[in-house]
């Protein structure tokens, strides 16, 4: 592109003048500009913006890009492509997160424990061996039709 090298992100700003220049480059106030901590992870002087998704932005404001809720020239979050409205949403929930997590884990663990118990200690109604009619299917099993089939009685008196 036609942008000069000093308009592009650079290394971590060390002096206050570098910080002011970086804040101006990113179109931010000097007080708002906060780079990522210098851990050597490769962020450079990119600003650390609050981790909020685009869903939290005002839906009624006239954004330059309404679907992204983003204005032209506004500094984008490092994880912007994660925080778009099709993906991660950090909007405040009606129920607090720890309550939701607790309810979900209680339900999941109950179901898993019950399924596990049922797998290791199955319990069914008592059954007996299957009883076949016609003298234990004498003719169907290839018995001689001329001979008398052996009598099969499945009950006791």
């Amino acid at each position, binding site marked *: *592109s036609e*942008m000069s090298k000093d*308009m*592009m*992100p*650079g*290394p*971590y700003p060390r002096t206050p003048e570098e910080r002011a220049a970086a804040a101006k*480059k*990113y*179109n*931010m*106030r000097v*007080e*708002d500009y906060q780079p990522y901590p210098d*851990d*050597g*992870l*490769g*962020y*450079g002087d*990119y600003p650390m913006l*609050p*981790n*909020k998704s685009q869903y*939290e932005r005002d839906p009624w404001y006239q954004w*330059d890009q309404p679907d992204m809720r983003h*204005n*032209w*020239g*506004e*500094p*984008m979050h*490092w994880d*912007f492509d994660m925080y778009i409205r099709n993906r991660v949403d*950090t*909007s*405040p*929930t009606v129920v*607090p*997160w*720890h309550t939701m997590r607790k309810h979900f884990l209680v339900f999941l663990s109950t179901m898993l424990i019950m399924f596990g118990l049922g797998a290791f200690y199955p319990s069914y109604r008592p059954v007996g061996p299957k009883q076949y009619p016609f003298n234990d299917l004498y003719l169907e099993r290839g018995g001689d039709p001329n001979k008398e089939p052996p009598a099969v009685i499945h009950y006791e008196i």
Partner: protein
Amino acid sequence: MASAPAESAARLYGANRFVSLPAELNADTYDRSPEKRRAEVERLAIRAQLKRQYQLQLNNPNPPAVIEDPALVRWAYAKTQNVYPTFRPTPKTSVLGAVYALGPILFWIFALKADRDRKEKRIQEGKYHRPFSVF
């Protein structure tokens, strides 16, 4: 809980990195000090300048083919070409690199080798029935 201050309600809500605090529980919403208003005015000034630049380009009778967004260009540059120059080997990055990059490779090397050795032993003992399939 109407008598409790909003700060403890915010702590009860427990905003973490998955959800943010609602505006009603955030003390910043109710802060109407002059410093905050001056900050908001300065931010609005920057935003208005940027909007003006964008609208001038947009409503130009001879508009450029693509109105490139410098914030987007910087974001893409920072994520792709600015990582290697600003990377520095530190204890943290070395540990992370070892765990996430070398770890899986070494793990799968040893896991697959152990699995293959066990299968080879079973074949030698004659206990393994080799399945025949064209695929």
